[in-house]
């Protein structure tokens, strides 16, 4: 049923859909032409050595502040932005070896759903036109086939009866409905992986849950894997199997969704989670304790890149790069983080 037969199988195991190794997206900061004669070029490390893998049917979320590189990471995964280093294996195939036509073919299987439904949809097209567009790009042109896929997608995102929505324009739909049109647009191509950038943060609480439940349904019913980029940590925990916390281009901690929120280990994850307001008005307003300015990922500090903001930093952190390693957590077994101050897991002696 799934169309992964066209994707050559590599050595990745069957239950891994996406595997990313040392992924990098560096770019040269543009300076004025005059400055460029005198100044050294500045290298922006938007994504700087990311490793992660996503299982088939898994929901994985990346959380972090604005400017941490999470949106760039999402785009780099699909080569919407070309990475400058590292490897992306989708169903075993190294995407970086694909020509642009092969990559275009591959995009059928990996779809991206953007942040703002009000901006991402052409206001001059009806829902039918919006859903037909991706199929036309991918040469699915038989009217019957198009109609079937459109109906199925609208059904899957619960815009029913489909006929009522086909001829509507974006301005005639609510924010929650538009968000579902965006998902339907990805679904007409029958993807195996969807990258969703802030799928719920523009929505009212009353409809946010509906979008989160939709993602869960698509995973259960279509076995679609999700890579979700969000600053909504509540949504990330509710929805995901695992969460990665990103800071200045790197994943600094990764673990089960419950574990990361209940027992964060990295000082950055702790600050992030501490800042989330609980709805109970009696609980005081917290502050992150780390200030709010994310440095630009140029001229990165030596040692741990978080040390200038870190309340736990020592002299050692200023010079030595922390190692990515397993750490013990009461809340989950396979917690990984990179921090000198978090004691590594003791390997059991045989």
């Amino acid at each position, binding site marked *: 049923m799934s169309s992964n037969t066209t994707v050559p199988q590599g050595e990745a195991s069957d239950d891994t859909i996406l595997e990313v190794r040392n992924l990098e997206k560096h770019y040269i900061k543009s300076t004025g032409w005059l400055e460029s004669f005198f100044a050294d070029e500045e290298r922006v490390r938007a994504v700087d050595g990311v490793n992660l893998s996503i299982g088939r049917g898994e929901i994985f979320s990346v959380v972090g502040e604005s400017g941490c590189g999470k949106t760039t990471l999402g785009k780099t995964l699909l080569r919407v932005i070309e990475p400058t280093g590292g490897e992306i294996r989708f169903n075993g195939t190294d995407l970086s070896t694909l020509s642009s036509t092969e990559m275009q073919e591959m995009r059928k299987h990996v779809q991206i759903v953007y942040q703002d439904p009000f901006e991402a949809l052409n206001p001059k097209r009806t829902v039918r036109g919006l859903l037909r567009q991706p199929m036309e790009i991918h040469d699915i042109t038989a009217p019957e086939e198009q109609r079937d896929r459109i109906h199925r997608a609208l059904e899957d995102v619960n815009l029913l009866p489909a006929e009522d929505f086909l001829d509507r324009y974006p301005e005639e739909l*609510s924010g929650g409905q538009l968000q579902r049109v965006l998902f339907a647009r990805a679904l007409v191509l029958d993807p195996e992986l969807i990258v969703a950038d802030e799928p719920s943060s523009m929505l009212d*609480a009353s409809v946010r849950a509906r979008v989160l439940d939709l993602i869960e349904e698509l995973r259960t019913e279509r076995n679609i894997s999700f890579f979700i980029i969000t600053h909504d940590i509540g949504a990330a925990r509710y929805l995901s199997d695992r969460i990665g916390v990103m800071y200045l281009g790197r994943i600094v901690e990764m673990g089960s969704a419950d574990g990361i929120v209940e027992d964060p280990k990295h000082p950055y994850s702790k600050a992030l989670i501490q800042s989330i307001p609980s*709805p109970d008005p009696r609980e005081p307003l917290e502050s992150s304790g780390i200030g709010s300015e994310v440095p630009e990922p140029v001229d990165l500090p030596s040692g741990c890149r978080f040390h200038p903001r870190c309340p736990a930093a020592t002299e050692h952190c200023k010079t030595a790069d922390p190692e990515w390693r397993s750490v013990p957590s009461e809340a989950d077994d396979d917690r990984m983080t990179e921090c000198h101050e978090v004691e590594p897991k003791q390997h059991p002696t045989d």
Partner: protein
Amino acid sequence: MSKQTQNRARVADETLLSVRNLSTYYREDESDVPVRAVDGVDLEIARGETYGLVGESGCGKSTLGLSLIRALPPQGEIVDGEIRFGGRDIGQLPRAEVKDVQWAEISMIYQGAQNAFNPVKTVGAQIREPLRVHDIVPEGEREGRVAELLEKVNLQPDVAEQYPHELSGGMKQRAAIAMAIACEPDLLIADEPTTALDVIVQAEVLNMLQELQDELNFGMLVISHNLAAIMKLSDRIGVMYGGKIVETAPSETLYDTPRHPYTARLLRSLIDPRRPPEQVETIDGTPPDLRDPPTGCRFAARCDLATEQCTADEPPLEAVGDEHETACFHHDEVPEL
């Protein structure tokens, strides 16, 4: 902490703003059927008090804020009611006098304030503008005042020389706060002050508003769809639905014992990341069309408790407890919802 002190202080303190039966409609032209964005709202805010206004997009909460500061778009018009502030009805002030009120007495942090700055003027020039218009600080001292304001919102003085695009979203939001407090207004309206900001900046902005209020003792109206953020900041909350306030109570009371079905549902749609619910609730259906609102209760079509009475008569806002009012015929049944 400071919220509690203000809670006590409020009893003795004077009312700053008193809104009675306010209605604001939008229409393209005379022949157009008006959108009744705000439809008969009562509201009071005391000096030093924070009133939080929550509700879904399109419920009229931003229109209410824009009405108070008389900054409605040309299609919007206050058609009824009064806005008593500083001993006069500012809803009826002629255009020319409105300018004296804006920034100086009532100021607003507009929704998306991060993008509201003029891109070709420095941040300092823009913060100086209200100081110049109201001639509050002599010209020679304005620069010093700008530096002082920037310091209050934790921005370096050199930010004054920067252009908006050089600042991060969080820095721009803080600069917008600096501008809003420049003339030390009596009332500050903050429309979605934390929307689109990440949690770290969000917490910072909320703390900052609270500290500035402690220092400057302005009354504050905070408008947001983020119930979790707003409840911490506010002494009292008003829940708005379909152009009307359907429930109002001190924030603790509202959180513990909501008495309107809409409020109860809204609270259950929140996700507390530290205590995630098994199932997050959705409120089925869509808000009413405010060009043609239904008779009776505007929430009836989405309400599990609705009866015939609800679709026939409009429930009045009535007291159900200390400082607690709700507009629901079935408020007794809400706890069992």
